[in-house]
C-alpha cells in the first residue's frame, strides 16, 4: 500500500458538507484534546476554525516550545542548474520559457560553496530543474561530494529519483530530501503539468516514500499552495506527512507551505491563499503533528516570516538567491521565482535573536 490508497479514500470526500457541520463546540473540544485524529485536523482547517486562530496559536506555540524550544535552524538553497524538460504551468524554469539556462561547473560549485560557507551556514539544499541530460544523477552526486567539504548537512531538491538512486545519494552524504507534490488533486496535477516526465502523478506521489526507504534522515514534503483550494491541499499534505511518519518512524518528516510566487511564465488560475490561511494551516499542522518539522522559505515576506517564528516554524532559509550561481558569479542563470525576503544570513540571525529565539546553524553532521 502506498499513499495513493489514502488519497483515493478521500477522493470523493464531501469537504463542503464536512466543513458545514463543524461547530464551535467541536473546535473547542478538539483544542482540549492531547492527541487529535485526522478528522479533528480537518476541522481545524475549516472556515469555522478561523474564529479560533488565537486559541490555536496558543496551543501550537506551547507544543512547539515543548518539542523544539526557542530555536530556528537556518539553511540556504543553492541552485546548480536550471535546465528543465518539463512544462509546469506555474514555474519559471519551464522548458518553454525563454530564460538564460546555466549549470555550474565543479569549480563554480566550489566557489559558490565557499561564498555561502563564509556566512556561517552549515546546512545547504541543492536544487536543479529536471534534466537527466544536463544534470544527471552522477552530476548531482559529484556536486554533493564537493559540498560535503563545506557543509555538515546537504539536502537535495531535484527531480524524483528511484530508490536505488536515493541510496547512492545517501551514500554520497545527502541526508535531506525535499520533494513537493505541488498539487495532490490528480486532475489539477494533470492539467498544470503540461508535459514532461513530471506528468507521472504516481511516480511523484511515491517519491518521498522512496526517499524514506533509502534511509534519508529528513524528508520534506508539501503542496504548492494556490494550485487548488488550499484547505484540501493542506489536509492531503498533513495526511501524507502523517502516513510517512507512521510508516517510517526513524525519518524526520517536515512540511513546507509554499505559495505561488511571480515568475517568468504565466499562470493565472491561482486560488487565493491569504496570510491568515497560511497561519491556520501551520497551526493545524502543529497541533496534529507536534514533532513535525515546518520549513518556511523566502517566498514569504520578511515581516510575515518574523511573525510565524513563534507559531511552530522550525527551519527557515536565509541569504537566498534562486539564480544559478547567484552567490558567487556574475554570469548567473535566471531564477525560478521571485523571492520576497532578501535578508542576509546575518540579518536573519539578528531577527531571530531579537524575537527571543536561537538561530541554529548546525543541527546535523555526517558520522
Amino acid at each position, binding site marked *: 500500500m502506498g499513499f495513493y490508497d489514502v488519497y483515493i479514500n478521500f477522493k470523493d470526500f464531501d469537504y463542503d458538507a464536512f466543513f458545514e457541520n463543524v461547530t464551535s463546540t467541536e473546535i473547542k473540544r478538539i483544542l482540549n484534546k492531547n492527541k487529535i485524529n485526522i478528522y479533528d485536523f480537518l476541522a481545524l482547517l475549516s472556515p469555522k476554525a478561523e474564529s479560533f486562530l488565537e486559541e490555536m496559536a496558543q496551543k501550537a506555540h506551547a507544543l512547539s*516550545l*515543548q*518539542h*523544539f*524550544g*526557542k*530555536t530556528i535552524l537556518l539553511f540556504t538553497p543553492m541552485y546548480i542548474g536550471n535546465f528543465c524538460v518539463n512544462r509546469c504551468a506555474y514555474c519559471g524554469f519551464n522548458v518553454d520559457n525563454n530564460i538564460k539556462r546555466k549549470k555550474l561547473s565543479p569549480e563554480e560549485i566550489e566557489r559558490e560553496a565557499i561564498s555561502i560557507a563564509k556566512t*556561517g551556514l*552549515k546546512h545547504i539544499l541543492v536544487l536543479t530543474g529536471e534534466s537527466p541530460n544536463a544534470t544527471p544523477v552522477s552530476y548531482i552526486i559529484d556536486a554533493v561530494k564537493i559540498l560535503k567539504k563545506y557543509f*555538515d548537512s546537504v539536502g537535495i531538491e531535484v527531480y524524483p529519483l528511484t530508490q536505488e538512486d536515493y541510496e547512492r545519494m545517501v551514500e554520497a552524504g545527502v541526508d535531506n530530501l525535499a520533494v513537493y507534490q505541488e498539487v495532490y488533486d490528480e486532475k489539477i496535477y494533470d492539467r498544470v503539468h503540461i508535459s514532461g516526465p513530471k506528468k507521472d502523478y504516481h511516480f511523484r506521489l511515491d517519491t518521498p516514500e522512496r526517499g524514506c526507504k533509502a534511509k534519508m534522515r529528513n524528508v520534506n514534503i508539501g503542496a504548492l499552495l494556490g494550485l487548488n483550494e488550499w484547505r484540501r491541499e493542506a489536509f492531503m499534505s498533513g495526511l501524507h506527512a502523517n502516513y510517512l*511518519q*507512521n510508516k517510517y*518512524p*526513524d*525519518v*524526520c*518528516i517536515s512540511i513546507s507551505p509554499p505559495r505561488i510566487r511571480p515568475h517568468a511564465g504565466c499562470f493565472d488560475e491561482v486560488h487565493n491563499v491569504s496570510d491568515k490561511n497560511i497561519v491556520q494551516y501551520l497551526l493545524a499542522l502543529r497541533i496534529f503533528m507536534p*514533532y513535525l518539522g515546518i520549513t518556511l522559505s523566502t517566498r514569504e515576506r520578511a515581516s510575515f516570516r518574523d511573525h510565524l517564528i513563534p507559531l511552530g516554524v522550525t527551519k527557515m532559509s536565509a541569504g537566498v538567491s534562486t539564480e544559478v550561481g547567484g552567490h558567487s558569479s556574475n554570469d548567473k542563470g535566471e531564477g525560478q521565482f521571485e523571492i520576497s525576503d532578501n535578508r542576509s544570513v546575518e540579518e536573519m540571525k539578528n531577527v531571530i*535573536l531579537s524575537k*527571543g*529565539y*536561537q538561530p*541554529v*546553524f*548546525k*543541527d*546535523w*553532521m555526517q*558520522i
Partner: protein
Amino acid sequence: MDLLKIGGIELKSRLFIGTGKFPSKKIIPDVIKSSETQVVTMAVRRVDLEAKEENILEYISKDVIWLPNTSGARNAEEAVRIARLARAMGCGDWVKIEVISDHKYLLPDNQETIKATEILSKEGFVVLPYMSPDLMSAKRLVDAGAAAVMPLGAPIGTNRGIRTKELIEILIDEIDLPIIVDAGIGKPSEAAEAMEMGAAAVLVNTAIATSDDPVNMAKAFSLAVIAGRTAYLSKLGATKKCAIASSPLTGFLNEGEF
C-alpha cells in the same frame, strides 16, 4: 556529606541540565551558575568547533562535567560513532546515550541503547544511558557497564511530570546504580518528587530553557532538588495504604489478661 558518585567522581549537585532549546546560547553560563549544576549535557550534532560564536562548548565552563549526548543516533552503531567523535573533540569521557528511532514520540530504543552501552563502557567511557523505564533493560544496562541509568519520566519535552513513577520506583529499588530521572520533568515540584522517591539526580532541559526566565527557573530547580533530596534523607513519614483504627481489633492482646 551526601555526595553522588558517578564514574569515580563525587558530585554535590544532583541537578543535571541540558543546553538545547534555549533562546540564546549566551544565557547558558548564567543558567549554569544559578542552577549550581556540575553536569551539563549538549548535543554533539550541534557542536560546531570551527565557528567560535556558534560553538556551544564556548558557553559551558570547564568547571562542570561535560556530558555530550548522542541525540540524532538511530541505532547503536551511530551512537557509538557520535560518542567517539565527542571524545575526539575534547568533550571528555562521559557520554549520554540517546538512541531514538521514533520521531513521533521520541522514545528511546532500549535494545540499541544496551548494545551501545556495552561497546562504549569497554572503551572506557562513563556511560549514562537514556532509557524507557523497564526493569529487565535496566539490569542489562548494569551488566553492560553503565555508570548510571536515566529513565524517562514522560516523553522528551512533554513537561508532563513523572508519569512512569511506578516503574521508576522499581528501578530505584532494584538497580544498584544511580537512577537519574531524565525527560518529562516540567516543574520544580516534579523534580522534588523524583528526589523524594529516591532518584539520585534529575536532568532538566525544556522546563528551564523554555520558561520566561531561564536563570531564575534554574535556581528554582536547584532548590527543589535540594528540598526533595533532604526530604528523602530525612525519611518521609511512611504513607499507609489502609487506615489504622484508633481502637484496633487486636488491642485486647495488650490488655494483660493472657
